[in-house]
């Protein structure tokens, strides 16, 4: 009888009361553990082995942290780290500056601004691969529109921007800028909308010019928004893949082989799984760190 009561109470607790929430959450938790967490743990496991799928014997040799140590000495990783930082820094800086400019330009509530703003949702909703391929076609040396007009103004692009060392990275950055600047613009538009109006009135009474109130009021007041935009885009920029695959495939040389693309090449083209997992875990660590900071910032700002 006592046991039965106990069971009934436990049953009540889990099926009737607050416990039901656990049951509603459990399927997703189980799914995510199986589909995302287990592979991530598995990935840490294989990163400790030398494991090539192309090896006919499928041998796994334990190498400890060997793959991680190898990464720090590998010249192609150094090259791709360089490409990654060049890509991430230039996309983030250009997109934030351009995005802030767009937000200021299009913040008015008139028909033209509203129309352009809703149009600017498109680039980030499009399949990134399509964006990359369209730009590849535009950059094409023989038939491409960009190369044609460049030649008209007396600038011969040679093998085309995507294949010329020194130009491939800026060319890919431009594609990323096209895709993601609108997002930064929307973040800043939300930030601008939440600015208080009193300081501006006070500044006007004091005779400040618009430029002065922008520098001394708008920019400092937008600092929290800027932080969100900066962290978010940095994180996303580390994950760029589709547009690079579509435009340069990492070339010429390693100029546009960002770490994310390098991992794909090592793991899913050359099937050097152990090494690729180690590299992926390094990227995961960088992005994971950024995302924890980002979540803390978001939580503090109560977004």
């Amino acid at each position, binding site marked *: 009888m006592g046991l039965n009561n106990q069971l009934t109470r436990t049953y009540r607790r889990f099926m009737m009361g607050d416990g*039901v*929430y*656990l*049951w*509603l*959450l459990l*399927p*997703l*938790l189980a*799914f*995510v553990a199986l*589909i*995302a967490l287990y592979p*991530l743990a*598995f*990935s840490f496991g*294989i990163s400790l082995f030398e494991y090539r799928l192309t090896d006919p014997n499928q041998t796994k040799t334990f190498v400890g942290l060997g793959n991680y140590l190898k990464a720090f000495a590998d010249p192609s990783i150094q090259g791709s780290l360089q490409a990654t930082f060049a890509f991430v820094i230039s996309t983030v800086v250009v997109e934030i500056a351009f995005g802030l400019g767009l937000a200021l*330009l*299009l913040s008015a509530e008139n028909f*033209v601004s509203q129309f*352009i703003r*809703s*149009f*600017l949702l*498109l*680039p980030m*909703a*499009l*399949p*990134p*691969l*399509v964006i990359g391929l*369209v730009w590849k*076609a*535009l950059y094409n040396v023989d038939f491409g*529109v960009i190369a*044609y007009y460049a030649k008209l103004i007396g600038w011969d692009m040679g093998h085309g921007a995507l294949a010329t060392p020194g130009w491939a990275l800026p060319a890919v950055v431009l594609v990323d800028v*096209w*895709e993601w600047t*609108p*997002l930064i613009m929307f*973040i800043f538009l939300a930030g601008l909308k939440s600015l208080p109006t009193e300081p*501006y009135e006070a500044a006007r009474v004091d005779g400040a010019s*618009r430029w002065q109130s922008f520098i001394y009021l708008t920019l400092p007041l937008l600092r929290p928004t800027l932080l*969100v935009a900066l962290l978010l885009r940095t*994180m*996303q920029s580390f*994950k760029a893949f*589709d547009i690079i*695959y579509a435009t340069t495939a990492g070339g010429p040389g390693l100029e546009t082989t960002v770490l994310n693309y390098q*991992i*794909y090449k090592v*793991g*899913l083209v050359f099937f050097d*799984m152990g090494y690729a997992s180690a590299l*992926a875990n390094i990227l*995961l660590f960088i*992005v994971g760190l950024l*995302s924890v900071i*980002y979540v803390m910032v978001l939580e503090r700002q109560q977004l």
Partner: protein
Amino acid sequence: MQRQSRLEKSFLAILTVVVLLFFMIPLYWLLITSLKYGRDAFALPPQWAFFTPTLKNYTDALANSRSLMYIQNSLIITTGTTLLSLALGVPAGYAIARTRWRLLNSSSFFFLILLMVPPVATLIPFYLVMRDLHLLGTYWAVILLDTAFDASFVVWMMRSYFLDVPQEMEEAALVDGASHFTAFLQVALPLSIPGIISSALYCIIYSWNDFLFALMLTSPKTKTIPLGILASFSAVDISWGQMATLSVFAIIPAVIISLFLNRYFVQGLTMGASKG
């Protein structure tokens, strides 16, 4: 704000036009290329307006069994991912919004961070797991991995949505003797349909746009539209018309989203979900 001088006004107007052109030209090019005959697509100087328009590329694409297969595969994977993500994510979002258990509450941050994991980092081990289970090349492989990301997003979206749904009606139902489960199904769920629709549209766009997962996890028979576009681009004779036509199919969800769901879409992106 001080009044703008006329010079300043015209400068800003020119700037606006330049910005608009920068963002519009690639899409305009895509659209007109899909409407051109082969020879016109390659013509230089580029024909921006005065060319003979044709729907030949579209009729060709719709008569081509392979194009139809890509479209069908994309539809299957997108539908599967969206349904599964909603089935898992909506109840979980409700649970996180309503529970008083601290641990369950803060599990929402776990899903947020999961959204930001670089896709390639999960793809490599997932590929090996799918290979061992002989699921490579099936729809399931792509659907399962897409769902891991999309469902994490749905949880976030639905959690904030349920937090805004007034609890009084659910409490009244509980007082009347309904179980928590019934309160969820019959009271909270019908009130949250707009949130479910936005979550669904978001899942649709992400699984429809996905390239990397489909690239590694599909077989020639389960390839999706982005892979079809890639194939028409890298074929021996580049068929820009076909590529453009498939691309136009590929961007339909994006166009719908930006017309109808803009607010939620930007909100979703700022949660860190982005694979491109």
